[in-house]
């Protein structure tokens, strides 16, 4: 029972982290190595709204998400657009950006125990004899909402459909009058908002530490590769696989193997099925 519940919580956390990364990659083929940095930045933003500006919690969250969206759009509009299409430069630019942000936060002294976000609702319930605090249940709830929203958005909204068109065939979409750059701006903005949202939901479970940024990046990449880069259905499934395996290793072997699971998952996927669980046909030909 423990494993089931904590596995669920862990899986939804991973799905939340990864969905932003996979969205951006799926739509505009940009590997956003600054994803982890965006996650941590949200944490600090909301923290400073709460503790320095003394804004109400809900407004702090909304403001934080709004700013994240703007940051995402800004990153694309001013940085990535210049290097679009040059794979090496895309990788290096996002990686450098992520590093700059994270290490700047580290230098500013954002570390240690002092920075935490409040939980949404205090308290815990007991499910089948296992005590679970409400925040963890909220993680599951928000996870489901985000997944459902993503599905509805990409299937019934014009912008969402355009995004899906971009993801499937950029050139065909451009010929149908979809602005590739504008879509990428939207994708980056949404990706950043999703990174921010996952931070707001997940960070109350622990402290805000710079290291989290690297962990989140690694975990979301692991999830995306196992699920198939750019496929968000695959990402959700992969989040469940990795999530449960992680919890099982933590329960039966040792908690340190947490990260090793992610690394091994990537390696095994690359060896057995490089296109991931749900990689599209195009990715199948990636193996050279």
């Amino acid at each position: 029972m423990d494993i089931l519940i904590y596995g669920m919580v862990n899986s939804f956390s991973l799905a939340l982290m990864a969905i932003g990364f996979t969205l951006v990659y799926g739509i505009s083929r940009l590997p956003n190595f600054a994803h982890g940095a965006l996650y941590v930045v949200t944490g600090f933003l909301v923290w400073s709204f709460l503790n320095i500006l003394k804004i109400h919690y809900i407004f702090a969250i909304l403001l934080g998400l709004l700013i994240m969206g703007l940051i995402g759009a800004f990153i694309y509009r001013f940085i990535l657009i210049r290097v679009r299409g040059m794979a090496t430069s895309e990788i290096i630019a996002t990686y450098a950006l992520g590093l700059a942000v994270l290490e700047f936060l580290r230098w500013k002294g954002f570390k240690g125990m002092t920075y935490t976000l409040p939980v949404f609702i205090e308290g815990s319930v007991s499910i089948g004899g296992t005590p679970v605090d409400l925040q963890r249940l909220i993680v599951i709830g928000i996870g489901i909402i985000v997944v459902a929203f993503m599905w509805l958005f990409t299937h019934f909204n014009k912008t969402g459909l355009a995004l899906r068109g971009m993801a499937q065939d950029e050139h065909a979409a451009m010929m149908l009058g979809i602005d590739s750059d504008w879509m990428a701006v939207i994708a980056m903005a949404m990706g950043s908002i999703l990174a921010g949202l996952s931070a707001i939901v997940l960070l109350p479970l622990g402290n805000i530490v710079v290291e989290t940024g690297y962990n989140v990046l690694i975990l979301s990449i692991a999830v995306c590769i196992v699920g198939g880069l750019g496929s968000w259905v695959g990402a959700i499934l992969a989040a469940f696989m990795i999530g449960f395996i992680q919890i099982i290793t933590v329960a039966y072997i040792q908690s340190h193997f947490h990260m090793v699971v992610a690394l091994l998952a990537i390696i095994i996927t690359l060896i057995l099925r490089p296109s991931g669980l749900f990689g599209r046909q195009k990715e199948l030909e990636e193996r050279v």
Partner: protein
Amino acid sequence: MDKNRVTPERRKERLDRGIKVRTEGIYAIASWEEISYLVLPRLLLIVGLLLLPLLMPSLYWKRVISIVSIYALLALGFDFLAHFVGLVSLGGAFFVGTGGYIAAILNKAFGLSPTFTIPMATLAGAAICTLLLLPALPLRGVYFAIVTLMYPLVLARIIEALNILGGTDGILGVAGFPSRWIEQYLILLIIILALFGLRRLVNEDIGLVFRGVKDNDQAVRASGLSITFYKAIAVFIASGLGSLGGAYLSHIYMWSGISQFALDFSIIPIAATVIGGGGTLVGPLLGCFILVPVSELLRAFGTLRIVFYSLILMLFIMFRSEGIMVYAQRKYHQFERWVKV
């Protein structure tokens, strides 16, 4: 007003200089001028490198030269992989850490002297790195970057968590070099050899194969060559350079620890390559000799150094700068003048 302005009447004309001597395969060495035109830059570089330790004012700055050289090895490896084979490695720290730990273990557990540990760590480190990166090699795209990014982070985490290999303290009491002069001149010789060796390599036939792998992998496969094999060779070379640097580092500091997996080793070589001029092999070297001493000056600012590099790197990438060395080479080989149309 602006001297460089292009007007309808004026344009910039570029003329290649000394094209005769630079034409590949034809070694028309006709006069002293042409010989010196070719040899002088190389000579300047070698003599300059060899004089450096003598010019350094203090022991501290002499040590910095050794550190610069280690970064230079990494940067050479990065440039080689990125611009000649098409693999972007975000994990220079992975190579350094592997080499460093292997050298330290060989020295502590088997009592081997640096004469043996460094070559052994180079080869073993290269082999291990290549083996661990092998799953990413048959694939195109971002996989190699992702996997190289993950290894140093995760390996450091594992060593820390399991408390193996000395845990957070690292391996202490590794043997040092017999003398400071050996320490410095050996590494300087190594980088000169690595530089000219790699230059030779990329201009040989196998260098063409590497370029084929980078630009046109399907055609290489249709030509009957295994892409994975040639990528593995390239990764072996680059990770060997990195491991060599790592092993050297262990012996310089007489210590090997988690900080050898630190981000500095990943980001500085990339920044040095981009700033110095990617694809020139000399450029990254130059970049290191600019960036690493600056890094030493900024030591007081802690991790702000990394912010500084990352931002510079990003700006260079954003504005698609060609890098110092590419610019310098162009200026060296060409006359430029304004002509009236």
